[in-house]
């Protein structure tokens, strides 16, 4: 008899052992939520129609990312929301239309099925909202103490329409740098959700998919030179990638950086910089100067771009340098953090 899975069930090694328990978990949690015909077929691979892909563009985009986060649930989303939107965004910032996702779960023995369901439902909702299908998946269970509750890997396939060419190496002196909204919301929300700070602030992760916004941006300005979503390492890391790939320098205007007051508060208290905080629903784009204002105005009409603004410019050189014009009018370098961001004593 197939063991029943309820919300109170805790995952055991049996749920990864390939037998009835595993089948029951897959059917009652994963297929129940994702329900795509490809997944329900339960073959070892998804089979995708090439004609459908070819009709939408001339190149495939393919990306993968793993999601490990503590805590698994936080204001504004959970690890599942991140796992879908993060991979979708990695496709979309290359100009691709996301179509299919895979997902692989590594579950630590003892995880409550209720929590797993919440994560899986968040993934379903995010995928539905974005119009993509989760077409193949995998489940592994590791013994208690050998993993941190739940790790998710997702890979994604999308199609890049003909003529779209977005790459960091294409930044040119004089171009403007646009950010799609406020900086550091996700990083600050996670810091607070970990509970070490005992701060009382309304912080929410900005986790969301960006491909709707990006479609509109490319429609208005197909000449967008470069685009990245500013996740781990924050906007600072993306700007370093742009500067290094293009052999140009980058200048930010400190007085133009959009940061919510509550996120600034966290930064001020801990001596950290929102430019280094992770975002999960913000992109940085480099565009020709003449198009920048028009594009920002258009972005502000989309829910994912309400706070879009110009934050800097591309300079001739020296290649790889990222600098900031400070509020006071001085200039300083914006370096990458060495490793973990450590709060200051005083």
């Amino acid at each position, binding site marked *: 008899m197939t063991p029943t899975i309820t919300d109170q069930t805790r995952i055991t090694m049996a749920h990864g052992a390939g037998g009835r328990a595993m089948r029951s978990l897959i059917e009652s949690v994963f297929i129940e939520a994702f329900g795509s015909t490809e997944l329900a077929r339960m073959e070892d691979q998804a089979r995708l129609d090439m004609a459908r892909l070819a009709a939408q563009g001339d190149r495939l985009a393919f990306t993968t990312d793993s999601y490990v986060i503590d805590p698994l649930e936080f204001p504004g989303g959970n690890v599942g929301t991140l796992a879908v939107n993060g991979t979708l965004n990695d496709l979309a910032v290359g100009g691709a239309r996301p179509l299919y996702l895979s997902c692989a779960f590594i579950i630590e023995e003892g995880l409550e099925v209720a929590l797993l369901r919440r994560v899986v439902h968040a993934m379903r909702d995010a995928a539905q909202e974005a119009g993509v299908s989760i077409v193949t998946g995998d489940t592994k269970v590791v013994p208690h103490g050998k993993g941190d509750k739940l790790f998710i890997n997702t890979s994604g396939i999308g199609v890049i329409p003909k003529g779209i060419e977005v790459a960091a190496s294409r930044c040119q002196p004089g171009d403007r740098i646009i950010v799609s909204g406020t900086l550091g919301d996700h990083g600050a929300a996670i810091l607070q959700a970990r509970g070490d700070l005992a701060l009382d602030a309304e912080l929410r992760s900005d986790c969301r998919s960006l491909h709707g916004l990006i479609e509109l941006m490319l429609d208005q300005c197909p000449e967008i030179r470069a685009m990245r979503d500013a996740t781990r390492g924050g906007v600072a890391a993306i700007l370093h990638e742009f500067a290094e790939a293009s052999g140009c320098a980058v200048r930010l205007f400190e*007085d133009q950086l959009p940061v919510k007051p509550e996120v600034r508060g966290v930064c001020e208290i801990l001596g950290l910089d929102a430019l280094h905080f992770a975002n999960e629903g913000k992109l940085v784009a480099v565009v020709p100067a003449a198009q920048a204002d028009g594009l920002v105005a258009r972005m502000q009409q989309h829910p994912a771009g309400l706070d879009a603004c110009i934050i800097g410019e591309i300079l001739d050189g020296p290649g790889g340098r990222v600098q900031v014009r400070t*509020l006071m009018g001085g200039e*300083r370098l914006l370096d990458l953090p*060495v*490793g973990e961001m450590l709060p200051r*004593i005083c």
Partner: protein
Amino acid sequence: MKYVDEFRDPALARQLLDRIASLMNSPALHTRAPIRIMEVCGGHTHSIFRYGLEALLPEGIELIHGPGCPVCVLPRERVDDCLAIAAEPGVIFTTFGDAMRVPGSEQSLQQARAAGADIHMVYSPLDALQIARENPDRRVVFFGLGFETTMPSTALTLQQAAREGVGNFFLLCHHITIVPTLQALLDDEDVRVDAFIGPGHVSMVIGLEPYDFIAREYGKPFIISGFEPLDILQSIQMLLEQLNSGQAEVENQYTRVVSRSGNPQAQQAVAEVFELRERFAWRGLGEIEHSGVRLKPAYAAFDAERVFALESRQADDPVDCHCGEVLKGQLQPQQCPLFGTYCTPSNPMGALMVSSEGACAACYQYKRTDVS
């Protein structure tokens, strides 16, 4: 943002800079240049680099980045003590984040944690006490680091632990005190400083009086300063006004936080828990008399130095390390032969490269080559 943006107003900064420029053009200061101003506190050093203030000042003002960063003056052998305690069976070692990356003679706390030591980063000593309450079968050690700024919170935590009778909580005390070190610098003939930007948060606790001798006996203007860009510019202006008129006084720019007598409750807590050590070692500066505190005998049961048998050992800095000269203002960070090559924030040789308040790390992070 309230209480922040007011102190970062570019128009007001411009007015202060204009006044500073006109003071520097006065005959008294013009002939005396360069005017060497030491900002004592690492928080000031960080702000100066973070806002690019040096480049905005007129020629003839030289900022010397002083010893007021507790992480920067933490000797290697003290990190070794931390590692030895953290390696003891059953110990949970807790520390402020800044100390995690300071190199000991072989490892940092961060590296020891990766190798399996149970080391927790905390935001307050009370967090460490809470860990001790929650883990009665473990010995929980808090590494108390910092000047008078952090001393009161450690003192109050120990008083709390004593009241509750928490028997598994210990303090490794590395609290230090800035005034004797300022005196040692003033007595060092290699150090030439015309005026001081004085520490803000330390003074919030100790008040203004402990600095009087610097103005009275050494004739140096001393301005207690806040940490925002306008605070620092105004403090520089106040120092120059004094120098221009031939005065030397202790003045308080940071009036919104610091009072003349400091914080009596904090002073009382510190006095009840701590006593001065005869001498204490500062990285780069050597041993300085009465510059550190330890727990009083009444708190001996909490004293990690007594409870854990620590070997006394000497761990010298690498031969080419010039942290001491940078701390004394004899070398600018970039003039150190190791700067940016053998010594970087990813692989710090000297402590000044570790904390973002260290002169070398701030310089590397914000100003590696002059940004034009």
